[in-house]
């Protein structure tokens, strides 16, 4: 027996079908090739399976989406007897990630009760979030996971990397060289447009058609007082 699950999709009316293989755990799911079904066959039957499901947050979401089939883009089919519901939520997360569907991914992240989840599951979700560019969800998971798992080095590294920005010094003296560089770029834009230039304090050191050529001509390419940039 299979169960069909769906995500609402507002951004596109394209319908995609998605088959989750029969996996008894969650760890190997990502390595298993996904199978896409191109035709929306048997929708009534699938909807019947959905409506027979219970009342979890995800299933409510699914039921709502199926009522308006035109707004549904992603269906996931699995063997109903294969995984526990908790693992299935992680499978949904992996499915959304493998589809590159950030909106679906965000919905699943928000629907999962993370306070029952392990460090490994947090980290897995974080990796998935970063792999598809779901940055707000990555930040959320890193913040929550960092508080819950203070002893886990990898979790703490994610928390450090994705921490909110922090003011280090709000009293940095004015930098007149920076202002001079901007004035030079404004004054000489037409002359050097699209070329690479090296500037120090509003003075041109060298210009070249490419960055490689420019670096070859610079005495010290690592000099931190030099602005190296294309002219926009």
């Amino acid at each position, binding site marked *: 027996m299979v169960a069909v699950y769906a995500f609402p999709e507002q951004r596109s009316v394209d319908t995609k079908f998605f088959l989750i293989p029969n996996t008894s755990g969650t760890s190997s799911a990502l390595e298993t090739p996904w199978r896409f079904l191109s035709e929306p066959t048997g929708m009534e039957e699938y909807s019947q399976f959905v409506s027979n499901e219970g009342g979890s947050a995800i299933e409510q979401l699914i039921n709502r989406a199926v009522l308006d089939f035109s707004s549904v883009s992603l269906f996931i089919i699995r063997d109903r007897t294969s995984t526990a519901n908790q693992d299935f939520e992680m499978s949904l997360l992996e499915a959304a990630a493998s589809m590159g569907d950030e909106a679906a991914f965000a919905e699943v992240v928000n629907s999962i009760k993370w306070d029952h989840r392990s460090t490994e599951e947090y980290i897995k979700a974080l990796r998935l979030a970063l792999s598809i560019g779901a940055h707000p969800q990555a930040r959320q998971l890193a913040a929550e996971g960092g508080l819950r798992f203070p002893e886990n080095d990898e979790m703490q590294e994610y928390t450090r990397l994705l921490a909110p*920005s922090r*003011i280090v010094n709000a009293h940095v003296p004015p930098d007149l060289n920076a202002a001079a560089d901007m004035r030079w770029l404004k004054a000489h834009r037409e002359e050097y447009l699209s070329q690479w230039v090296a500037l120090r304090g509003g003075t041109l050191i060298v210009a070249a058609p490419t960055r490689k050529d420019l670096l070859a001509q610079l005495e010290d390419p690592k000099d931190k007082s030099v602005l190296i940039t294309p002219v926009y």
Partner: protein
Amino acid sequence: MLFLPNREPFATGVMDYAFRPTDSGENNLRIILRISVENIPALAVLDTGGPYLIIAPDVANRLGFDPEASLKKTEIKIRGVAYTGNLHRVDITLTASEGEGIQFQATAFVPNTDQEEKWGNLPTFLGIENCLERIRFALDPNPDAPKFYFGTLP
């Protein structure tokens, strides 16, 4: 420099900005700021829809980042093109021509070295989330002397 109605400072520093396209093939004008990343000067486009500081490969090369030093791989889409890279924490300075500059620590995305050719001449991008989120800013779009005013949240 700029004050809220309750006299609390809104902006404590100001810098000039450029308002130009950053790609020869585009017409859209971008707000280009002169910043420093780990004390390396760089031009960066203000990207209010983007996360992190997204560091152009040429700036990343100057910073000497080792792609293997961070195993937190991620993907960023810029103008519809996906770039793979890693996350780091860096110190960024908004350099003031008047008033005070601000140094802050933020999340940075550094594209992998094999992305450099695809990157082309795109600039560094200064996003909001995990980056400018603690910075108040305001623009004076005077075409003769556009100014970017900035300050910190209390």
